[in-house]
């Protein structure tokens, strides 16, 4: 029952990613070429709206469904990892035109070749996990 709620939110997310066209390889190319405001508008509204959301939750002792006061953990201050890992992801994002969320949504659209992309992403994750202690963070 608890997990069913996440299924419903996931369905909403899949619809939002599709109707926003954020799953489109073309839109990601357009973004990295700075030729339209579309993707910047989506991410910008999400960040500004999200910042307001975070502010309201932090200052309002907001309780979640489990009646717990919501707190937000800080991201680890591993700046080298953010920069190098982020650059690797950026290369892959521009090639496949999809970040992790849209990769899953594209499978739902029946683009079966995307399963190969997801398989490669899992392999990349595995290699990171194996090499983790040898990489600069």
């Amino acid at each position, binding site marked *: 029952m608890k997990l069913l709620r996440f299924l419903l939110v996931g369905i909403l997310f899949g619809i939002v990613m599709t109707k926003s066209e954020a799953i489109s390889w073309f839109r990601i190319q357009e973004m990295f070429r700075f030729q339209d405001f579309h993707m910047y*508008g989506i991410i910008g509204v999400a960040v500004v709206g999200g910042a307001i959301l975070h502010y309201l939750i932090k200052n309002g002792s907001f309780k979640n469904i489990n009646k717990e006061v919501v707190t937000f953990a800080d991201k680890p201050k*591993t700046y080298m990892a953010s920069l190098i890992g982020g650059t690797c992801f950026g290369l892959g994002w521009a090639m496949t035109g999809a970040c992790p969320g849209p990769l899953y949504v594209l499978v739902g659209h029946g683009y079966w070749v995307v399963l190969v992309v997801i398989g490669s992403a899992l392999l*990349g994750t595995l290699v*990171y996990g194996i090499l983790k202690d040898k990489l600069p963070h």
Partner: protein
Amino acid sequence: MEFISQPWHWSISGAMIVVVMFLLIYLGEKFGVSSSFRAICSAGGAKKWSYFNYDWKSHDWLLVFVLGSIIGGAIASTLLASPQPVQISDATIQDLAALNIAAPQTLSEGAGFVPQEIFNFQFLTSLPGILMLVLGGFLIGFGTRYAGGCTSGHAISGLSNLQLPSLVAVIGFFIGGLLMTHLLMPLILG
């Protein structure tokens, strides 16, 4: 129905992402999709490496969320399908034509949201295809887990919570994306 079926304005889309983020926070979790890769590797038996030796069942909700997003994609591509192709700018259409990528088509004419020149199994048998889809996927998995997040975890959750490591990660996303788009992709597809 027509209001939902047509492509949404970016402001509506951005606001709906905030709704998704709020719902996940309300349900006691957070918005970040790339952690699912770690959970799948761990569930798949990679526990001999310490990074995967954690209780992946603490991410069961994320795996269900991801399953939901696949279903959402199926619903959106059928019941809520837009009659128009993706409306990208003319400048992008011209740039892509130079890379032998045709303008977006509708799903009934072509491949819809993605270029059919790239997203097919035939292309996977060529070197450019292996680079674009296999190496591209590998870099997504490796890079997001190295950076500790992707567009959802860093660019949206992290930036909106004013996290400096997330800003550095987003700068990295653009260094990689711009390098690929403007320097490397013309070599791969040219």
